[in-house]
């Protein structure tokens, strides 16, 4: 009698397993569903030349030759002093004209941090010294390096007055709340004979 009961239980449990499967856990095969992943949101914050008003001057270092002969290749060192950001190299002549040396069509803007040689490390462009004044003994040229945490959207509109606000001061005082640590500027002056 007992044996009969047990054999019934065994048959029943086997039948249950066979019919239901593995504890009823088996799920119907799911068809792969295509989900259009939303594009990741990346912050698109940008700086503008108006932010140069509160830039910190003299906080990145530029050094090199102080005098060039005409048509001589210009070369100088840029040291971001451990700061990271997007670098712009801007030329300013005696007449107050500016020109963006870097970035340009061949050398895109890039984020960097360290010591570089300009122009060697910026795409290998060649920049030569020229003198526009006629009859003068030498002409002064100033090159600024602007290091900004964010790309400067309107850098093409940069004017000499935007760079003059530092007035040649090469230090920023500790606790100076007016200065903007996100933009650092350095400069180098040289003469073309």
């Amino acid at each position, binding site marked *: 009698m*007992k*044996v009969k009961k*047990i*054999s019934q*239980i*065994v048959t029943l*449990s*086997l039948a249950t*397993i066979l019919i239901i*499967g*593995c*504890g009823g856990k088996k799920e119907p095969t799911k068809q792969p569903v295509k989900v259009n992943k939303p*594009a*990741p*949101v*990346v912050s*698109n914050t940008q700086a503008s030349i108006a932010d140069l008003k509160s830039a910190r001057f003299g906080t990145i270092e530029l050094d090199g030759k102080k005098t060039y002969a005409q048509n001589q290749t210009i070369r100088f060192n840029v040291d971001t002093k451990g700061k*990271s950001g*997007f670098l712009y190299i801007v030329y300013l002549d005696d007449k107050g004209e500016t020109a963006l040396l870097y970035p340009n069509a*061949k*050398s*895109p*803007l*890039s*984020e*960097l*941090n*360290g010591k*570089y040689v300009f122009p*060697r*490390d*910026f*795409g*290998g462009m060649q920049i030569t010294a020229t003198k526009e004044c006629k009859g003068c003994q030498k002409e002064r040229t100033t090159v600024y390096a602007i290091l900004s945490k964010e*790309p400067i959207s309107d850098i093409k509109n940069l004017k000499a007055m935007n760079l003059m606000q530092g007035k040649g001061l090469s230090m920023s005082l500790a606790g100076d709340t007016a200065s903007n640590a996100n933009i650092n500027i350095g400069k180098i002056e040289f003469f073309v004979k």
Partner: protein
Amino acid sequence: MKKLIKLSVVTVGLLLIAGCTPPKVELSESGKINDIKTDYTQALRNINPMIAVFNGSPVGIYIKPIADRTASGGKLPRDISTVVKKSFNSIGENVKTMFTINLKNPPKYRFYIIEGAITEFDLLKVSGSGRDAAGQGTYNNQKGSVDFGMDQEDKLTKLAITFNPQDPRTGNYVPNASTSNRIEVNQKSAGNEFAISILGSGIGLDNSVTKAQGLHSSINILVELSVVELLGKLTKYPYWLLTRGNVDYDIVAHLSRQFLRDKLNKKIQKVSYLLSLRNTNIQVTSMMNSSLKQAIIDYKVAHGMPANDIISSTLYKSLLGA
């Protein structure tokens, strides 16, 4: 009656374990056995340019005997040093496989000593009768262990290979550079077919289906992919892009710091190389050109970044998969 209870427990256990638990890797019965030298071997080939782009200088490797340290009972090759050496030696000129070390006159490039072993071997299902597997059965709320034989020809083999690199200059093991990867080989009863699954943090082939030509070929694959990961950890290149594994954030941090310090030409080379891994039409270059510029813009747009050609660390990290 006792016999009957035991029989029922064994039957239920057998059904639960053998019948209800599918193997991790399924291979269709009609599947053709293909040569394994496909994308895995390509991963090994890709190391040479990766080292050139991300490391810049060659690396030397000296391999100590790599043996089977498991109780496999002769089921595995005793020594796989030759397979490991072959894998390193097939990479190219940026990996120098050394047959001797002269510490008094060391080579100019960095070099490492590789120590390793087969560290794990399990045969989970085997053909034939006998006590090949164990399980637990419950009857009337009483738990008990049962052993049972399986009259089944499928078998699942697991084995793991570990590599520990040493730096002879310091006399220490290189921190965070050890690799330990496991392979599961599922041999189907029909036609001696094999399916493999490689498990490891650096290798993302879990549950992928690949047909190999046996256990020895599977060892080759595991060694090759472990070599990709090991060299990636030693020379700091994004090996997970080749092995489809998890992103190694220590290497991402290292690469990101290095990227900021790179010269523009090097940055362009790295970005174009990473883009070329996704799109074979892109040429690796160190000078910006219009097609690369467009490829960068396309990539940025597809990944929610501003549509420009600015070489930023955000772009770089995104290309690294981080």
